[in-house]
């Protein structure tokens, strides 16, 4: 895989009239795993959604570049085909569309119109991925996310990550709703992709727990809509042991949240 760089520069984002991100700077390269941590309400998920192009968020300032190309000028589907992927915290349920048909459409969207993935090859790839993620084969024929448990939805997101092979993936609280066994399965799968493809990754999480299984190269702490501190994997361990208070004290922050009305 060629070297890919995602650059987020001075990103300001608002939802309705609330500014949530107030100047985020972050660069992610192929093979690098970044974790963005922080308490609730500090703008972590907004960052993930803004990069992918969620319709509720408005970029008011700054830029996002993928290998120098302006991501903000791209439609959501163009961003995906350019190599971005977001494992969502709350994926939509889509009635009447099977997970299998959806996956096939997603893969074929990356290929020439007259060169769709051969059916047998698709089924084989999907079956392997389902096995690796310990997902019941029936899920492929169920309607996308409809009636899925929280854990099934998260596994389904990683199934897609595995099958679509993006350059840069953002995992938005992929650990919430997963028990410890499921967390291990999902982490193993992500680590496999990391090794096989040189994926670059931005992991958004409240908890250090996930980072016990997926070791980040960089850890960033987000407060008040900005990255306020960055470090290595040891920073995550310190946060696990000591919480966030020491950072707030160090930086003189009283309320770490952003965009929430009292």
């Amino acid at each position, binding site marked *: 895989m060629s070297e890919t760089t995602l650059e987020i520069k001075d990103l300001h984002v608002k939802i309705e009239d609330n500014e949530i991100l107030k100047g985020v700077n972050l660069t992610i390269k192929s093979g690098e795993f970044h974790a963005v941590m922080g308490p609730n309400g500090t703008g972590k998920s907004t960052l993930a959604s803004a990069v992918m192009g969620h319709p509720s968020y408005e970029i008011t300032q700054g830029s996002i570049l993928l290998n120098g190309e302006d991501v903000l000028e791209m439609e*959501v*589907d163009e961003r995906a085909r350019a190599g971005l992927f*977001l494992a969502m915290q709350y994926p939509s349920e889509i009635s009447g569309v099977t997970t299998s048909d959806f996956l096939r459409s997603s893969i074929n969207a990356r290929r020439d119109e007259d060169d769709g993935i051969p059916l047998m090859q698709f089924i084989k790839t999907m079956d392997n991925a389902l096995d690796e993620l310990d997902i019941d084969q029936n899920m492929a024929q169920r309607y996308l996310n409809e009636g899925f448990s929280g854990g099934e939805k998260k596994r389904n997101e990683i199934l897609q990550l595995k099958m679509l092979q993006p350059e840069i993936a953002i995992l938005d609280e992929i650990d919430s709703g997963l028990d410890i066994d499921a967390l291990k399965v999902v982490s193993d799968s992500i680590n496999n992709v990391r090794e096989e493809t040189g994926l670059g990754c931005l992991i958004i999480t409240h908890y250090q727990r996930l980072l016990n299984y997926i070791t980040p190269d960089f850890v960033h702490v987000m407060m008040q809509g900005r990255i306020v501190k960055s470090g290595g994997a040891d920073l995550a361990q310190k946060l696990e042991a000591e919480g966030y208070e020491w950072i707030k004290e160090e930086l003189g922050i009283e309320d770490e949240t952003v965009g929430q009305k009292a």
Partner: protein
Amino acid sequence: MTVKTKFPYDKDYVTSFSNKKDEPEWMKSLRLQAFDQAHDLNMPEPDKTNIRRWNFTNFELGAEGSTISSLEELPNELQDFIDQDNVPSNIHIQQNGTVAFSTLSKDLQEKGVIFTDIFTAMKDHSDLVEKYFMKEAVAVDEHRLTALHAAYLNGGVFVYVPEGVKVEEPIQSIFWQENESSALFNHVLIVADKDSELTFVENYISHNTEQENVSNIIAEVFAHDDANVSYGSVDNFAAGTTSYINRRGVADERATIDWALGQMNDGNTVSENVTHLVGQFSVSHARTVTAGRGKQTQNFTAITHHHGKDSDGQILQRGVLKENTTSIFNAIGKIEHGATRANAEQESRVLMLSKDARGDANPILLIDEDDVTAGHAASVGRVDEFQMYYLQSRGIPKQEAERLIILGFLEPVVDELPIPSIQKQLRTLIERKIY
């Protein structure tokens, strides 16, 4: 005072048509009486749709078709309706007023199954047809269009399944109104005797995009005790045709009548689908799907009418509307006094693809009994932007994402159609109407 309406064909025409078909006396007198009644009866009044200015009188009658000796002779446009992998052995094809092709497997013939055009049935099985024809399900004198139907009847089939016979392979009818100005007054009469099983599928096709025409369709289905009838349809009358379509069922004890109706007409349409759940433990699932385009106005009324104890009636309506189309969906669960432990559920959902389209979903419960369960749900909305975002975030282009969501929205009904080739045909029609 009623203004005397002039119909395009007079009583002499009705008499000579009946003579030409060599009909039994009861049918001829039924026609003539109906013709007289039609003058005095009112037009039907579908709830929330005004049909007063619709064309129900400008049409011709009398076009014939030609017979073919094998299904391979069918034109390409009809080949799509035939399951090519599994060539049907029970199929009836009507071109205008002519039986073009008709076949029923030897096995079913030997078991006493009757599958023939309605005129042959009236001659060969006169008593049987007379017993059911326009009596319990649809009455001749309900309104002007039912009376005109009886007077001008010019096509249709009769199906009889004897007691205990399970028809494994579907029975299919294709009604091809190939002549652009000749109207179709088509009647499907199905009688499933005790403990029998039948899957019936019908297709209506016409090509008159400009030429005005009329279709007046009635289907009557009788499922006697423990019988099980699955009824699928794909209607595809062209934009020039104004359609009145009335499909009714009567289910006796423990009988089931399931409907899966793909109502894909391009012209103005009034469609009624009523199931009388007469017997205890009778069941009906009434599913319908439509895609509206252009300026067409459509009214879909589905009713499960509960008379029997422990009867279960479920209505599911789905519609996708684009351009300037208007569609009204009325889903009615009616429970009579004494129908204890009946269950009536209605769900009507409409997806709007243009700001000029109008859609209205009205689930209605009319309950005259205390010990029942009932529920309804309705929604009229647009393609969900978060669903779009989700699909697009996987690289699926906007138009393809929308296509997936729309087809998925209609899938719960499409998936219930009994023959795979008909499902495929319906999906193709849906895509053609939407894109």
